[in-house]
């Protein structure tokens, strides 16, 4: 077997464009996931049992089923209920956001619970509502503590987003498949795809390390 460097050079721009799409799905999904996760995470420790119940069912269902199945559910099963096709991009983002939200919910729950109970008591005793105290006092402190696990979630999502290739959405992995179908260069292309993923994940983990160190230095501010 001969290693075809020409093929790599030729396909590289296409793969890079795919990598950009991968980053887009990941960023959007983790972004929406943060919103969903923040509310679901607070819901998991709510005093209202039905809020706690709904949040727990959500987190358990998502964490207890494969992302691949969740993608199928949204892309193939949901249209049968709503009666229209869903575009692959919307399906991909929806599935990944809902998935990410469940993991981020647990990160938020742990972050919020790590803040001293006296902080909530101080806020409440000053007349602020639960929501106000959460927003101004608890969450800003929790955010700093959850940066490292959020970084891990971002990396996990970046890799898992390759699964949306099964619904034909052209991110990095799907681009690779398509190029191989044309050129039969499985070895060269999959190696290249793997290296591009690796470069992205390593970059993100270094970035998270940096943020973590920065916040450690001025811990409380």
């Amino acid at each position, binding site marked *: 077997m001969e290693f075809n460097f020409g093929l790599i050079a030729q396909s590289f721009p296409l793969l890079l464009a795919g990598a950009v799409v991968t980053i887009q799905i990941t960023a959007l999904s983790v972004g929406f996931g943060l919103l969903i996760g923040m509310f679901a995470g607070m819901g998991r420790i709510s005093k209202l049992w039905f809020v706690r119940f709904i949040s727990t069912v959500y987190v358990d269902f998502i964490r207890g089923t494969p992302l691949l199945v969740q993608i199928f559910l949204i892309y193939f099963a949901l249209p049968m209920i709503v009666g229209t096709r869903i575009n692959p991009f919307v399906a991909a983002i929806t599935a990944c956001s809902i998935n990410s939200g469940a993991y981020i919910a647990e990160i938020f729950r742990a972050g919020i619970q790590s803040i*001293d109970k*006296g*902080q909530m*008591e*101080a*806020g*409440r*005793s*000053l*007349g*602020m*509502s639960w929501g*106000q105290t959460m927003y*101004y*006092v608890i969450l*800003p*402190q929790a955010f*700093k503590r959850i940066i490292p696990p959020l970084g891990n979630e971002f990396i996990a999502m970046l890799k898992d987003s390759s699964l949306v290739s099964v619904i034909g959405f052209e991110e990095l992995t799907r681009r690779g498949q398509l190029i191989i179908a044309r050129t039969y260069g499985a070895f060269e292309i999959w190696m290249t795809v793997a290296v591009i993923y690796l470069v992205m994940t390593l970059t993100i983990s270094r970035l998270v390390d940096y943020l973590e160190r920065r916040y450690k230095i001025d*811990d*409380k*501010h």
Partner: protein
Amino acid sequence: MISIKQVHKYFGKLHVLKGIDTEIKEKEVVVIIGPSGSGKSTLLRCINYLEQYSQGEIIVDGIPLTGEANINKIRTEVGMVFQRFNLFPHMTVLANIMLSPMKVRKITRIEAEKIAHDLLKKVGLSDKDNAYPEQLSGGQQQRVAIARALAMRPKVMLFDEPTSALDPEMINEVLDVMKTLANEGMTMVVVTHEMGFAREVGDRVIFMDEGRIIEEGTPTDFFTNAREERTKNFLSKIL
């Protein structure tokens, strides 16, 4: 000002308050003392509903402690100072004091800043407005916590062992601020082990043990002519 009627509190099976009855008048300084586990902090925390009581009734400034709306209203009228300060570590001293007046009383930033500066002056920490809590000593943090509570212009101040977490040399700076407040006519309920403060500033001393009020009276009476055996026993150990 505060009326407490037949208040009971259970933590699971543990009966920590066994029928507390007392009235706290306007401008009165009431000091609650007693051994640890006697329920004194729990009682204090019931007054602004940080602890839910199981039975009985507490009325603060004519408002019964029932329903979320009433509870929030009472909390704006009742300031609380905690043993462990509970300042917000991610905010400057000034921001700590300004937060609640701006968010709850809806006053402007400029007004809030003025109030905060005035209060910092009052507790002797004008130069610390831009410091973060971790940069302050315990005594300074507690004085900021008092200023923060006062910024809401409360009618009553509750103090939950405000000097217990402090190094000995810092206790007086906090007690001095509390004395000033008392002299200005603030209604205060203070749980403390500082008997000197109780004697000097208190209008009334309440002695609690095992979830009950055992004895109450003026400081002079209380410290010299305790009637109950348990009170005498307690006093003999600490004085």
